[in-house]
């Protein structure tokens, strides 16, 4: 005797968006609380620390610009991880894709001379994206053809990417600038720079590219045939294969697109912020992307917000370290806690809905 889905279940289902938001919100609050506890145990004052954080993120025009500046690569990275995840793949290699994309961008940026910006910049960014795509397609292909687990292969490619880019700007490296002492490439030409849009700050219009890309990814995932197939493969590759969807091919496509976004993140960072390739120019944006994607419920619009949140954490952390003496790495810790909570949210959500639905004597409640 089957029972009707209860009213509560129907309400939850109809307002999926709102409930996702609540889950994310709870995860953030819990992470901040847990973070505060850790701070207390370490002898810091959480209130002091958090207010320094907020001040560092919003306190002045420059601070807010830095927040948005950090948000940009996080948005790209979050979209990258989410896209792969939607196809059932774990792209832990975003960090490496950022590095390789940045390398390609710097190279194209300083070696192609005599081009007007309207041609140079797009070429540079496309180059960065393609480089990232190559770095992503490798693991995708290995998985499709050989069943190699993409977690290990993307992580290996991270290390290889770090070694390659490190080599490029090392003392005798091919991309090492002959002008400076530090491990960096020559500066890119001004025709390859992304113009700043806010006077007195470093903010460039890369953030607009990021937001536009979020919309594009949304359309791809939810409005196109390709996105439908990617999602189908991600949710149930057996059913997808049975009805004729080419699962291995979609693994490759998803990883390629994911790497493309990662590479673009690197390219935008080089062309908008650093203007040259530095040895480790990404302070862990690739790893934060994982938390950003999960917190954003793997949805492009959610990711816009979660990327912003992490941008706050990142830029605020600088001031938090200076003023309250709390290490910048607190961001990593909070990031990890958020990932934990988001990982717990689905199974726990199911569990609590279950419990909530039953009376004390175990009957299924009919009143909700």
């Amino acid at each position, binding site marked *: 005797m089957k029972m009707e889905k209860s009213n509560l279940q129907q309400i939850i289902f109809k307002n999926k968006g709102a409930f996702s938001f609540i889950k994310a919100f709870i995860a953030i609050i819990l992470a901040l609380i847990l973070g505060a506890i850790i701070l207390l145990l370490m*002898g810091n004052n959480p209130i002091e620390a958090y207010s320094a954080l907020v001040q560092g993120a919003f306190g002045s025009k420059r601070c807010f610009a830095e927040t948005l500046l950090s948000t940009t690569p996080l948005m790209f990275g979050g979209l990258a991880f989410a896209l792969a995840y939607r196809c059932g793949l774990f792209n832990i290699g975003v960090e490496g894709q950022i590095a390789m994309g940045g390398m390609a961008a710097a190279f194209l940026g300083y070696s192609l001379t005599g081009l007007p910006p309207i041609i140079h910049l797009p070429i540079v960014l496309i180059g960065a994206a393609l480089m990232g795509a190559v770095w992503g397609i490798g693991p995708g292909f290995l998985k499709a053809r050989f069943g190699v*687990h993409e977690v290990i292969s993307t992580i290996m490619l991270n290390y290889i990417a770090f070694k390659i880019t490190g080599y490029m700007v090392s003392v005798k490296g091919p991309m090492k600038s002959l002008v400076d002492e530090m491990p960096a490439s020559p500066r890119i030409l001004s025709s390859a720079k992304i113009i700043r849009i806010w006077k007195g700050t470093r903010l460039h219009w890369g953030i607009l590219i990021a937001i536009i890309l979020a919309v594009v990814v949304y359309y791809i995932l939810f409005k196109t045939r390709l996105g439908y197939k990617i999602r189908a493969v991600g949710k149930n590759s057996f059913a997808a294969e049975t009805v004729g969807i080419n699962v291995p091919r979609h693994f490759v496509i998803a990883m390629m697109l994911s790497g493309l976004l990662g590479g673009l993140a690197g390219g935008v960072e080089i062309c908008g912020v650093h203007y040259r390739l530095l040895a480790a120019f990404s302070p862990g944006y690739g790893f934060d992307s994982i938390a950003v994607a999960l917190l954003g419920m793997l949805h492009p619009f959610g990711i816009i917000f979660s990327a912003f949140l992490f941008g706050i954490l990142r830029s605020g952390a600088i001031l938090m370290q200076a003023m309250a003496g709390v290490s910048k790495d*607190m961001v990593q810790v909070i990031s*990890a806690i958020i990932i934990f909570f988001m990982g*717990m949210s689905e199974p726990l959500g199911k569990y609590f809905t279950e419990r909530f639905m039953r009376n004390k004597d175990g009957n299924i409640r009919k009143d909700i």
Partner: protein
Amino acid sequence: MEILEKIFNISIWASTLRIATPILLASLGGVMSERSGVINIGLEGMMLMGAFGAAAGSYFYGPWIGMLIGIAIGGLTGLIHAFMSVTVKANQIISATAINIFAVGFPNIMVPIIWPGYHAITPVVPVIKDIRLPLIADLPVIGLIIGNQNPIVYIALILVPIINYFLFRTPLGLRIRSVGENPKAADTLGINVVKMRYIAVIASGFLAGLGGAFLSIGYQSQFSSAMTQGRGFIGLAAMIFGRWRPVGAFISCLLFGFADAFQAAAQSAGMPIPPELLLATPYVLTLIALVGLIGKRAVGPAANGKPYEKG
């Protein structure tokens, strides 16, 4: 040619053992965990936490207590992964990724507290010194390779047959393996699936923690949050390459250890390849290993990675 001679002297084999040890410990941890059906990508993080715990413990209480603390912290981190994977039934890769990220951030915020003025890298701490095995060290070739190593290297070597025996010849080992192959079948015979998996995953944490302890107070003499360098993941690749068997993992780890020892020797012997690129050798080798040997036979325990739902 003389470069090759410089590289292939006897010390490269001794280096191989030393370099392989942390990878081996992580790999054995992977075997334990995955044999019970829980994927553990978090060995890297557990190793790093163990390295940190060992360094801090050694700083306050001396190297041996430090080693024990490192092992314990590794086990504690394993407990977290067990909780997330088995009780909460969260996605095992997400849980492990969180652990890996946490393991980078947490020690970094603790370092300035324990050692004021230091960030990311600690000062030198007391280490477990290498020892010389009396009779063995005098043997001709073997003695030079195996006679003079760190105690933790010896522990790791002994653990290979011990864990092999445990998994394949004891009742508890049989039960752990059953839970990794067909938890439902084991459940119907009254075996506590949850308990078996917790034991296995926490054990993997202990092993990874010991590997980390070796890094910070045996192989080197300080802790840095970048010190694991992917060894936890290479250990997993070695596990797959070794077909989830301790002896197979051991041989694979020797291979990886050799590759790393080779590239270090090549660097100092003056091989004309840029050092940074040589450093990439272990990672490239891992990729090749993963591709080369994957086929019909490289299948792990049947229930690997799937949370067990009763009923």
